[in-house]
């Protein structure tokens, strides 16, 4: 938290977290205004990132477990909503130099590739909560792991995407906030963070394109709406360099969390409820059939 870190800074300047290690090693005795600036204007941000299958077309229901199974050659990537989230954290870092951005992901070994990409985009540090438990991971379990990991790290801001493309629950950020007893704003489409007053003003996107303005005290949790920015595309060399960056590994079983309150009975393919029809034939035949339908319905004027 800002206040505690201020204290830490004054008593023990070299271990101040808001300054990058490079800045510290360059100047063992920072000037007074650098002290002042760093004390008030840098932040510590945690960005939660989920790895998802690149395409759900390759997924199948495993008849043995009743859950989704991934083909061996399934490609994985960063949840798109989290790309916007990481980008927004990096934009905050650009506004307030000295800000540290941690990227965190929960999952099996393969997740570390997505953390690598996050660091290639510009995250300072990668935290991998290694969760080898197969089967169903509820939003509550994932959020509990993140919350336990984040609890003692005094983040000013914890950010997640508004939802994951695969499970579409829109719960994780709000659960983390509730578990850590922090205020939270969801569907954030604009933010104005003010480290100097330890608060943040946001606009939430609500139904019909309207926006709700919310002011939160820091530390706080935000879930980010896509469209808030244009996520950067890291250069190949940056991504390659990120392969050499160490990642902090925490084993899920070493974090003490409560048991999940939901279980999954199974995944199924929804019955085709559509009354619709597929128009078949060659492309030209399909186009003619569409024409005829539009004519019959007097939609061509």
């Amino acid at each position, binding site marked *: 938290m800002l206040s505690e870190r201020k204290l830490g800074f004054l008593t023990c300047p070299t271990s101040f977290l808001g300054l990058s290690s490079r800045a510290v090693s360059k100047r063992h005795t920072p000037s007074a205004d650098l002290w002042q600036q760093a004390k008030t204007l840098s932040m510590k941000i945690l960005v939660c990132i989920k790895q998802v299958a690149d395409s759900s077309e390759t997924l199948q229901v495993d008849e043995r477990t009743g859950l989704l199974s991934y083909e061996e050659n399934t490609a994985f990537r960063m949840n798109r909503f989290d790309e916007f989230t990481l980008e927004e954290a990096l934009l905050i870092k650009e506004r307030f130099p000295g800000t540290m951005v941690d990227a965190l992901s929960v999952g099996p070994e393969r997740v570390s590739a997505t953390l690598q990409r996050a660091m290639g985009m510009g995250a300072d540090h990668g935290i991998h909560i290694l969760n080898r438990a197969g089967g169903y991971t509820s939003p509550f379990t994932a959020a509990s792991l993140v919350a336990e990991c984040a609890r003692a790290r005094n983040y000013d801001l914890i950010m997640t995407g508004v939802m994951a493309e695969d499970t579409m629950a829109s719960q994780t950020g709000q659960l983390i906030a509730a578990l850590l007893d922090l205020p939270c704003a969801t569907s954030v489409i604009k933010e104005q963070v003010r480290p100097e007053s330890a608060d943040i003003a946001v606009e939430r996107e609500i139904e019909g394109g309207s926006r*709700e303005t919310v002011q939160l005290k820091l530390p706080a949790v935000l879930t980010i709406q896509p469209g808030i920015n244009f996520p950067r595309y890291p250069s190949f060399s940056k991504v390659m360099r990120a392969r050499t960056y160490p990642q902090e590994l925490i084993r899920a079983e070493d974090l003490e969390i409560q048991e999940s309150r939901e279980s999954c009975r199974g995944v199924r393919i929804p019955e085709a409820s559509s009354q619709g029809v597929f128009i078949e034939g060659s492309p030209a035949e399909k186009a*003619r059939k569409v024409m005829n339908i539009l004519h019959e319905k007097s939609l061509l004027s």
Partner: protein
Amino acid sequence: MENRTVYIIAELRKGCITQETYELVSFARVIGKGKNPVFLLLGKNVNEQAREISKKTGCYTLVLLGDHLEHYNALSYAHALMEILQEEEAAWVCLPHTSMGYDLAPRLAVLLKAACVTGVESAGDGSLGRPIHSGRFMEEIVPKTPRVVVTLLPGAFRPCEETAGPAGEVKVMRAAFTEAPSQTLGIAESLHRDSALKDAEVIVSAGRGIGNKENISLIKKLAAVFSRSAVGASRSACDLGWVEHKHQIGTTGQTVSPKLYIACGISGAFQHVSGIRGAQTIVAINTDRHAPIFQVAHYGIVEDLTTFIPILLDELSVKGR
């Protein structure tokens, strides 16, 4: 399980009870085995809306009044609701899966030590069904606690019929104010909308599946074939910068009801589909035969639109003459 009280947190938008609130009644009766739910309505000056609920549904309606409840805020709502809900050892708490519902549900669930299941579409046999992977699959979630918080996808259930019976009782309580580290300051109405979408008889819409910004010209050409037409887009096409946000259709964009809606390269997540329910005829073009958009389309065409739209345009120009 059947003896649990079923609560509905009512939702207000621009001072009116939303349709999604009434859809929850139908859902609540399914999980409550026919029993009537109890409504909780929060606000500053909402007695009239409470009477509307009790009259339309015949349900007991509890109003929590407070100046600090004028606008929705997760912390002040959660605090006020806990006064009531923490008394219940076992209960269903139902909210719409909207910017209010999914914002509030996880907070309530943690405070109540309740299971939390969001974006639900169906209920039955002890589990709740919810679409995943944009609707390509459904997962069945079993809540394991006596208290359960649920958010229901808009449009998954029909709004309840107006009751012919007597109005439900309305009870008004004052909610105590507590200082919270978050404050809702107000709501700004959307300024940038394309009014052409509202009046259009034909809308041709682009999704992520159109592949790149250049292909928008195909969408525009197709739209231009029709008079009183407009170009629409899915959220992700707008977020990619391919189409301006004022063209966006769906929950956070506009709701449209044209005579003809042509969805091009749109996968069909509920956020988009809920904005086109009023369309009379939906034609979908997508390369993926299993895309959820084909569940709502009247006519489905599995083709690459970069090759198909030019063929369709040729056909239209021949017939049009």
